[in-house]
């Protein structure tokens, strides 16, 4: 019988603990239990049989850690083959007339994925894929991915299963006492991602007993539209005369599990500390319960590695600033591959209050696919906001969706057949909420009814792929009101029609409406309010626009979505009205007025002040004079103080940041005349090392002193460093390593640099290095701190000039 069919009508029973039973049968500490499939086949079969005898429908093969990171290919195949055979034999030899299945059990790799660990996402997918293919070859009936405590690794495993088999796939995660995964995901976030990717059942196992897991289970039951799994521990372990015992016995366990089955759990079993006795007790107590019908929750939501954002009453703000269109500096940053620029933009939008970040990095002259993947990975490493991936290039979209840690927003599809043919398969495979523009081969319908018709067509096509309407958000397109006086009213009407007739959410790129008009912000804010009034659920917008934020905050208060208007009051206290702006000084200021002020702001590390003073100074003082007479001397004073140990590192950095803020003001005011650029300095943390704070400090200080730093990031292979050095003919390379274990990588990098870039000087630094050690691995110089690196760079530069 098909397990998915069976699950529709019945409660499905999984097995209980394996590890504790194996230890009781003599498995030694540190011994790999998967080998027992071969060496102790009878023991394993016995345990499986006892679970079937207890009434299980599914036993999980003893393959928790059976992956190619732990075993050679040959041994892995032998283990998985034997494991499935043991489970099959147990099914045949056991009593009980219940339907029986064998699940290929897949546990986590035990490694952290990049960027916080060293396992690449695609490598993780490949590891799981190998195990899945062997499971299929030897006849598993389904795949159970379990005990995953990281959302990204869960995604890798589920993707591997989906790409390598047609079997049902169940995914179960391990939650901590705080109700989150170790890496931060909430149940709602996991439900969004796993359902989006097509898991057949999802839920929780391990960590805690049934009672402690109940809040997490309730969250699953609230959000999930697929059967929910519960496989808890027998409570918490404690030591009784050197033996581990768990504090929940089988009777209590069955009672607590039964309560959760009554609330709607459909797949039950046990984890650590549970035995066939526990499962038998659960089966006995729940077998006569009429299973709850599983309801489609119709929730529209996207997720990040931490949380889900749901589209319902409160409008969702989608930040539009990560987009090069019309932004000269953004384009320059993309061409220069300045990822920090993109990160800063994203963080600033987050701080301005958006809920989702739109990410568009398309420029004709760059490799969009590569850049988009990099930007998505870099952003999701530092912000908890879900991302909206914005590209018209289907291959870039797929690559980015693949790497995205959660359920993304997909921007966009439209009613053209070609668009739907390329976007819907991706949405189906990777999950996601698709933004659908109401236009097609014949263009944008002028009337609201016309746009509704396109929306209906898009829904019908999505249905063919099994994409539900909850995963489509329509953008009925804001048109320019200065070109057509009815443009805004038709769009507003379309919002209402789509909401009322189709029951779908809507979103708009609001600012298009005001194109060609003066004081666009005023029109945008008003249009935004009107659209929200028509029931619009989300907007792609500029969060730095006061008018937009005013409209948003006021709407929340007026729509009953802001208790006691508390958020509005908080927001209003920060609104700058014209009379609160400081009155400009009547006389034109002179350089002397600011001389000490800017210097003081920099040496005290006051960022905002340094920027403000600088921009005021620019009215009367030449940019380069500010740099030469103010910023550099102030920095130097702090630098010398640091060298003399009267100023400490955090203060040096605060000053450097203040100086940088001043520089940035000056840069944005200078056209072309950049002053003399200093030489290029290549900087990297070596392969295997993921610590980069020291490197970042050196980078900031070098930049302050005007060096043009090419930052290759962390965990950088020697070949990449050599390639960049040769390409730029860079005179200096700075390498950083924190651990003794990564110094060999540093030595190897130097060796390769000597062969391929004999002209360049290599300066090294990092916690474990000393001048002697640096000399021993062939570096030209050791720098104890950032200032030493600056002094050395200046030295090299002087020699170059000679």
């Amino acid at each position, binding site marked *: 019988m098909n397990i998915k069919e069976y699950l529709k009508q019945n409660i499905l029973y999984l097995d209980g603990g394996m590890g504790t039973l194996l*230890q*009781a049968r003599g498995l*030694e*500490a*540190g011994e790999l239990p998967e080998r027992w499939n071969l060496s102790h086949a009878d023991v394993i079969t016995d345990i499986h049989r006892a679970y079937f005898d207890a009434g299980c429908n599914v036993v999980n093969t003893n393959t928790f850690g059976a992956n190619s990171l732990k075993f050679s290919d040959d041994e892995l195949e032998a283990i998985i083959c034997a494991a499935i055979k043991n489970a099959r034999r147990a099914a045949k030899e056991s009593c009980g007339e219940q339907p029986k299945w064998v699940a290929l059990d897949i*546990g*986590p790799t*035990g*490694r*952290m994925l990049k*960027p*916080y*660990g*060293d*396992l690449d996402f695609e490598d993780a997918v490949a590891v799981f894929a190998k195990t899945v293919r062997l499971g299929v070859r030897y006849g598993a009936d389904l795949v159970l991915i379990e*005990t995953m*405590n*990281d959302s990204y690794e869960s995604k890798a495993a589920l993707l591997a299963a989906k790409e390598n088999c047609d079997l049902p796939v169940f995914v179960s995660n391990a939650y*901590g*006492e*705080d109700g989150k995964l*170790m*890496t*931060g995901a909430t149940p709602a976030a996991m439900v969004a991602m796993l359902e989006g990717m097509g898991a057949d059942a999802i839920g929780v196992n*391990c960590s805690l007993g049934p009672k402690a897991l109940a809040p997490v289970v309730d969250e699953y039951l609230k959000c999930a539209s697929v059967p929910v799994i519960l496989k808890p521990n027998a409570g918490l*372990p*404690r*030591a009784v005369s*050197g*033996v*581990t015992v768990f504090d929940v016995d089988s009777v209590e366990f069955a009672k607590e599990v039964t309560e959760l089955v009554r609330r709607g759990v459909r797949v039950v079993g046990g984890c650590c500390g549970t035995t066939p006795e526990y499962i038998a007790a659960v089966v006995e107590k729940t077998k006569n319960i009429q299973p709850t019908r599983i309801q489609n929750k119709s929730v529209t939501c996207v997720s990040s590695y931490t949380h889900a954002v749901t589209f319902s009453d409160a409008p969702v703000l989608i930040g539009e600033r990560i987009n090069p269109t019309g932004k000269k500096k953004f384009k320059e940053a993309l061409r220069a591959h300045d990822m*920090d620029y993109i*990160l*800063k933009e994203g*963080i600033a939008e987050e701080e301005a209050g958006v809920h989702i970040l739109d990410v568009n990095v398309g420029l004709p002259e760059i490799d969009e696919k590569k850049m988009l993947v990099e930007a998505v990975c870099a952003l999701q*490493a*530092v*912000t908890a906001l879900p991302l909206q991936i914005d590209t018209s290039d289907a291959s870039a979209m797929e690559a980015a969706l693949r790497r995205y840690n959660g359920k993304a927003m997909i921007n966009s599809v439209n009613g053209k057949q070609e668009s739907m043919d390329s976007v819907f398969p991706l949405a189906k495979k990777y999950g996601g909420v698709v933004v659908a523009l109401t236009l097609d081969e014949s263009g944008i319908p002028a009337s609201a009814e016309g746009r509704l018709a396109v929306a209906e067509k898009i829904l019908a096509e999505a249905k063919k792929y099994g994409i539900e309407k909850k995963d489509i958000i329509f953008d009925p397109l804001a048109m320019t009101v200065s070109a057509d006086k009815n443009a805004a009213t038709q769009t507003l009407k379309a919002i209402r029609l789509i909401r009322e007739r189709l029951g779908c959410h809507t979103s708009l790129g609001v600012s298009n409406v005001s194109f060609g008009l003066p004081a666009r912000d005023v029109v945008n804010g008003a249009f935004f309010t009107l659209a929200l009034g028509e029931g619009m659920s989300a907007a792609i917008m500029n969060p730095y626009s006061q008018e937009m934020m005013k409209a948003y905050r006021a709407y929340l208060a007026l729509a009953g979505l802001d208790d006691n208007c508390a958020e509005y009051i908080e927001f209003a206290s920060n609104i700058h009205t014209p009379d609160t702006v400081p009155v400009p000084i009547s006389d034109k200021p002179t350089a002397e007025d600011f001389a000490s002020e800017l210097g003081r702001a920099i040496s*005290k*590390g*006051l960022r905002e002040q340094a920027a403000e003073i600088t921009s005021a100074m620019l009215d009367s003082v030449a940019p380069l004079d500010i740099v030469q007479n103010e910023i550099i001397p102030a920095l130097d004073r702090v630098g010398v103080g640091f060298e003399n140990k009267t100023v*400490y*590192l*955090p*203060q040096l*950095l*605060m000053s*450097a*940041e203040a100086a940088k803020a001043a520089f940035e003001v000056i840069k944005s005011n200078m056209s072309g005349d950049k002053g003399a650029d200093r030489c290029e300095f290549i900087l990297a943390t070596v392969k*295997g*090392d*993921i*610590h*980069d*704070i020291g490197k*970042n*400090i050196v980078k900031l200080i070098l930049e302050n002193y005007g060096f043009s730093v090419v930052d290759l990031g962390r965990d950088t292979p020697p070949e990449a460093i050599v390639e960049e050095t040769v390409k730029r003919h860079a005179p200096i390379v700075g390498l950083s390593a924190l651990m*003794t*274990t*990564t110094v060999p990588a540093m030595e190897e990098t130097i060796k390769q640099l000597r062969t391929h870039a004999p002209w360049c000087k290599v300066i090294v630094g990092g916690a474990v290095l000393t001048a002697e050690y640096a000399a021993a691995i062939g570096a030209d110089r050791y720098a104890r701190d950032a200032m030493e690196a600056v002094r050395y760079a200046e030295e090299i530069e002087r020699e170059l000039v000679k």
Partner: protein
Amino acid sequence: MELAVFTKFYDSPPVCREEVLRYAGVRECTSELDGLVDECILLASGRTAFKVCYCELLVSVCGDEVAMGCIKVTSKSLAKNLVGCDRAVIFAATVGIELDRLVARYSSVSPAKALILQAVGAERIECLCDTFNAEIAKERKTRPRFSPGYGDFPLEAQREIFALLDCPRRIGLTLNDSLLMSPTKSVTAVIGISAK
């Protein structure tokens, strides 16, 4: 004997400012710096976990050869540390991945903040180790905790400690190929317990 590994979670106690400044290498504080430290402590609050997993093992020392349960290590300094001990607690502790994310977030926006957050992390993990250590030392006479990498206690022992304690599953702590731990603000160590 069956091996019993346990997991412990603590509520994280208040951050000690003086320690944070010490880890940041600051001896005299200015008011601007004070403000930065306050801000960083606030940023990190609620984003640190206090998690430990541990087990107790029988110890035997013979010359430089140290055997702790299934873990066998050749180390003069560890042998010296464990003189007179018949048991030892091996533990792994972490304050979690969120702090790494915070540091990464600010390293592109504000290296000064990243540096202070790094120092907050150092203070947090030491505080966690001290909390756990104090519990072990409450009723028994213990030796100072000793980590792989101290003296000649080889870093390679990390692999065995991780296998023994099942750190990824219990506290979300992982080891990479270069023997670096993720989350970075983590510690593994041995606490010797004197026979008498």
